């Protein structure tokens, strides 16, 4: 009975694992197939793998440029948010000041705003200022997603450091900035890298803002993938190849930083 139960548990979990991998496998298989093979039977393994889809897509300037745009936008938004986060989370974790609850609430409230409620006014403002299809505008919009994520994650990292660390540094004559830089940041550096990676992935995957605010000069990869659905109609291999390229950062991230994911996703509300 007990053995049966544990076998059942293994079976359920294995099935779940296979289901999780299934769409991913489909995409990779399709990307490696020629058009004829891809349409006849998606799962069939009887085919000669080809890299032509990848080569074709990477030679196409739109896809290549979309990867570049995605990198520039996601990296800048993440770096700016980290830089701001280092200081503001420190203030929120260590200092007492008037308006603290208010500013924390303001940062948190960004998460409550439906993204589409920001897209409409931003679209009007940016089209009036002639800033549609501009790196600046999409990065500003992405900061509204990055900042709450980073600030709350980093605050939870600071909160975990004992206050005695600050006091000892203070006694040794460190200034506040020196304490922050030499004493507090080194132990939480891995956490900061993980937060940065998580934020980067979220930005890399973002679709709605990019769909409406970017244009041909700043179009990101998810939008390029979406646009290509109609464009290639049934040449799924090519679309799948782009999709595989879009997946790579996420896979790298899972491999490198998975133990920080829980904290990141709940902005420190649950410890992983």
């Amino acid at each position, binding site marked *: 009975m007990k053995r049966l139960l544990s076998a059942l548990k293994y079976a359920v979990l294995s099935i779940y694992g296979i289901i999780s991998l299934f769409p991913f496998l489909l995409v990779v298989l399709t990307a490696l197939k020629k058009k004829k093979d891809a349409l006849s039977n998606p799962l069939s393994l009887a085919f000669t793998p080809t890299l032509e889809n990848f080569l074709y897509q990477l030679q196409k300037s739109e896809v290549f440029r979309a990867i570049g745009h995605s990198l520039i936008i996601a990296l800048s938004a993440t770096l700016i948010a980290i830089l701001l986060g280092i200081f503001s989370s420190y203030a929120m974790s260590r200092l007492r000041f008037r308006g603290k609850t208010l500013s924390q609430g303001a940062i948190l409230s960004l998460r409550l705003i439906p993204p589409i409620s920001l897209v409409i006014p931003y679209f009007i403002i940016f089209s009036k200022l002639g800033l549609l299809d501009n790196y600046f505008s999409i990065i500003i919009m992405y900061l509204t997603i990055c900042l709450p994520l980073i600030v709350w994650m980093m605050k939870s990292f600071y909160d975990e450091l004992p206050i005695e660390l600050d006091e000892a540094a203070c006694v040794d004559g460190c200034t506040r900035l020196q304490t922050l830089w030499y004493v507090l940041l080194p132990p939480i550096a891995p956490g900061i890298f993980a937060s940065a990676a998580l934020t980067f992935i979220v930005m890399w995957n973002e679709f709605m803002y990019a769909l409406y605010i970017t244009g041909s000069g700043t179009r990101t990869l998810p939008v390029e993938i979406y646009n290509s659905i109609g464009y290639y109609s049934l040449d799924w291999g090519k679309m799948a190849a782009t999709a595989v390229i*879009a997946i790579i950062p996420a896979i790298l991230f899972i491999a490198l930083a998975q133990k920080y994911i829980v904290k990141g996703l709940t902005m420190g509300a649950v410890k992983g």
Partner: protein
Amino acid sequence: MTTKEIRSTAYRYIMPTVAIVIIAGLVPILYSVYISLFDYELIQTQHTFIGLSNYLNLIADDRFLHATVFTVVFALVATICEVALGFVLAYLLYSKNIAPTFSSLIRVVMLIPYMVAPVVISFTFKTLIYDVNFGYLNAVLREIGLPILNVFSGKWNSSIAVLIMEIFLRTPFTILILYAGLTTISAELIEASMIDGASTWTKIRRIILPILKPVVFVAFIFRFMDALKMFDEMYVLTRGGPGYTTENLSLFVASQGFEFSHMGLASAASVLFFIIVAVVCALFFRLFQPKETKGGEA
């Protein structure tokens, strides 16, 4: 260091962030409220002030009401499924007769659907799985002799298709959080209950769930908030169709604003959307927030 100095440092440290939050978050929302009072068509240069007409038109609009109900019901159903399924799977992953290496392997594998761009997953489902002629779903149905299923037609098909994909996509999130919660329960407590002869069911209901309540709440509220605001999956998979059966508030606002260029109406709808999200979430906090987390940080 004096209080005054601390305060000035604090303001210097936090000001840039707060300034960006206000400029990038608050100002557009206020501007949106302003726009919503006008008959604002994207293609026209003159916009007439019409007071609350946009709001009144929306409340009388079947399509808007449908989108509102659909948004809340869909988010609720999806969240309940995800939390329930997430608990079952997290409990299995946590259970003692599963080898730790296997458990952590599954927890890594399941992250793939969660971290991959929703657009990519939606595209995969739309073409490789749900497509009427070439999708894998119908390939299987054909193989076992069942009639072909067109996921993108009919009243319920599309909603269920999106729901299944959404559960596939988001359950890893609830599993992760609930699993993290489960690992904090002390082993002695569980052992004690086993010695007292508690059945598995009693153990879950009387010991694990009460302790886990705050974590379940966090999983639920985070997931629910995001499910209300869901856009990518529906936009790629059904684009609100057939008709507007799978149109949620995000898609409604987007189509009013960008397809029909009724920016005034779209702004009004997006303001109402914001209010609906805030009210529904506040309601959940009121009704279900466990006492332990009340007044706590975050």
